[in-house]
């Protein structure tokens, strides 16, 4: 048991001692998670690059269909799967593991417990990733969307690896020094409890026929709603108040948002099968639950907007906030879009089209990925004890992916709608349907290329950070509030040696 760390539920600015202790708490929390978190981010960036390559290859193949067809490993069906899995379980999940192990100690004012378990879990997770991606490209896909990685020789690594990280987090929380759990901790715990359960259910090998479809989409939508979403919301709920220096607008709203998210999101899965050969009551349940998602989405949206109210200028100064607020707004947009797409009259036209793909990327990129970028921009300097090297690299990253997303999403959505209309006209030929989607496919490739350029800029910047390069400018690129303090500067900081 470590020496007691002063809890800081109510700020006390009257004594310098309190400041020292509070700083000490943070430094020790960061020191305990450092080893795991920086490795998690390193893995994440590698998978981001790999996933980008897979994505680009897949995208180009759709309008250059005779490109790279000589080898089965590069066929569209396999590369597209590799892209999804590399991004969802490689990039996003590794980044989320890193954010979780950093954030929880900070929020419970306790050092990360059993960090070796978390580290082992991270490695196991990535072993699973390598095996899984190889499995997909070699043709051993399990054949279920979001569950392609081979269930017997790749998937166990995710259950065990994720479980070990969860164990570490749970131990940390159980032995905490603060009494109350902040909402971000709720979301993170929930995510780590939900993921292994849904992953095992989704991969359970005994289902066939339409039941297999129901279980497939029960899992896949919950991977979005109960794994990816909660951790990203946790990050938004932490960084927005933290950087702005003011608490979240309504804590009650955030609790309402949490419980309604869990309860409604978990029932959404069948909306991927609207119109399909499933019992109507199942599909209706999901459509209703999708509609009810309005409640948590509005709760989160109101909370975040009101916290940011009249302080949007912060986005000019803080790169972290730029990415995170972008992500938070995208969360509201994609969720509202999803609510509409679940209604049968809209679904009739959007189902089976590229609107779905665009919607998926509005969620997985504009929400999840942007929030992970923002989180890494905040966390990594504090763990490495140095500022980001170049404000310009951050800016290029932001604009490349910002514009890239617009170029990707708008043409693809529009083309998808035209595709849907064409498909619903029984007299249209399939050639016309293909022609309808073509502008969107090309737009996606251009947008995807821009995104990849942004990723390369980001990866390069992260690489420079790891290598210990010194920032070129005199000021920290963040213009954020406090400097990045390391242990040796602690004394100077307290005595006012630092401004």
């Amino acid at each position, binding site marked *: 048991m470590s020496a007691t760390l002063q809890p800081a539920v109510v700020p006390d600015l009257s004594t310098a001692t309190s400041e020292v202790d509070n700083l000490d708490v943070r430094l020790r929390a960061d020191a305990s998670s450092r080893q795991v978190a920086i490795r998690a981010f390193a893995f994440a960036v590698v998978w981001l690059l790999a996933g980008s390559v897979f994505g680009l290859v897949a995208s180009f*193949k*759709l309008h250059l*269909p*005779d490109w790279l*067809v*000589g*080898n089965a490993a590069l*066929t*569209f*069906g*396999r590369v*597209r*799967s590799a892209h999804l899995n590399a991004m969802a379980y490689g990039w996003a999940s590794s980044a989320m593991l890193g954010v979780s192990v950093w954030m929880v100690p900070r929020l419970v004012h306790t050092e990360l417990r059993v960090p070796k378990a978390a580290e082992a879990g991270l490695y196991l997770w990535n072993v699973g990733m390598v095996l899984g991606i190889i499995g997909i490209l070699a*043709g*051993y*896909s399990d*054949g279920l*969307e979001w569950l392609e990685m081979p269930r017997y020789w790749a998937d166990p690594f995710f259950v065990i690896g994720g479980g070990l990280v969860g164990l570490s987090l749970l131990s940390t*929380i*159980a032995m905490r020094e603060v009494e*109350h*759990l902040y909402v971000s901790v709720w979301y993170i*715990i929930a995510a780590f*409890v939900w993921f292994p*359960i*849904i992953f095992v*259910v989704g991969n359970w090998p005994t*289902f*066939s*026929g*339409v*039941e*297999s*479809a129901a*279980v*497939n989409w029960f899992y896949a939508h*919950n991977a979005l709603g109960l794994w990816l979403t909660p951790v990203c919301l946790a990050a938004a709920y932490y960084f927005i108040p933290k950087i702005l220096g003011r608490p979240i607008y309504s804590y009650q709203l955030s609790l309402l948002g949490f419980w309604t998210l869990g*309860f409604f999101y*978990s*029932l959404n*899965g*069948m909306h991927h*099968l609207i*119109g399909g*050969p499933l*019992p*109507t009551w*199942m599909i209706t349940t999901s459509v209703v639950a999708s509609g009810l998602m309005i409640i948590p989405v509005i709760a989160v949206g109101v909370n975040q907007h009101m916290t940011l109210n009249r302080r949007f200028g912060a986005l000019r100064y803080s790169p972290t906030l730029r990415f995170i607020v972008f992500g938070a707004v995208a969360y509201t947009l994609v969720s509202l879009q999803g609510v509409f797409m679940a209604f*049968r*009259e809209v679904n*009739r036209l959007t189902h*089976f*089209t590229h609107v779905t793909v665009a919607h998926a990327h509005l969620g997985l990129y504009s929400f999840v990925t942007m929030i992970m970028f923002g989180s890494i921009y905040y966390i990594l300097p504090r763990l490495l004890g140095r500022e980001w090297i170049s404000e310009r690299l951050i800016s290029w990253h932001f604009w490349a992916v910002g514009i890239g997303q617009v170029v990707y999403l708008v043409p693809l959505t529009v083309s998808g709608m035209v595709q849907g209309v064409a*498909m*619903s006209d*029984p007299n249209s030929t*399939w*050639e016309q349907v*293909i*022609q309808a989607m073509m502008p969107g496919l090309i737009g996606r490739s251009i947008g995807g290329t821009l995104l990849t350029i942004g990723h390369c800029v980001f990866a390069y910047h992260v690489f420079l950070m790891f290598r210990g390069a010194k920032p070129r400018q005199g000021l920290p690129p963040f213009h954020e509030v406090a400097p990045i303090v390391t242990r040796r500067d602690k004394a100077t900081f307290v005595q006012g040696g630092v401004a």
Partner: protein
Amino acid sequence: MTRIWLLITGVIAIIVFATSLLVVIPNTMIGQVRVPRQLAAYTPQEARGREVYVSEGCVYCHSQQVRDPVYTADKARGWGPRATVPSDYIYDKPHQLGTMRTGPDLINIGVRQPSDQWHHTHLFNPRSLMAWSIMPAFPYLYEVRDSASIKPGEVAYSVAGGKLPPGKVIVPSADADALVAYLKSLKRTYPVPTGDEPAARSVGGRSEHTMP
């Protein structure tokens, strides 16, 4: 300390509830789906073909479901005489229902395209038949040989559209034959056994698939 257990209990309750509703309950009902008389199980070759279908990722562009004809154009497009029902998929493990239609629905492709020649040349290179197609080519499922080298009893196909040099033909691999056998087996046009029949529609396009 009690708070965290409260949270975890609540979180687990949520997922148990959802799993019960969307996985467990349907599972207890699935035993009541009848095996259609007119639907045979996949032969070993067709089953292998299905594995190839899964392995190549065909599901990412092709669906295998005909939706309600009242509010979709699936039937009018000629994709099937009726909406597909759960018993149509009784032998499918895993399902390949699909969520994208970059290409047409395939649940009745065996009816629309019964020709081996069509399937093999299409798979070898779709643009040999339709210049506008964006479907991937699968040349690695075939062996390209001189037509002169084909012995009697061997099956080979010529490919149009300038996708093969003159004098060459393609010989399907075992996997290509299996895949085509599977595709040809995709026929769900028989009338549904009673008890699975889609009931009358109401205004607004909602249909009732009743499961006993």
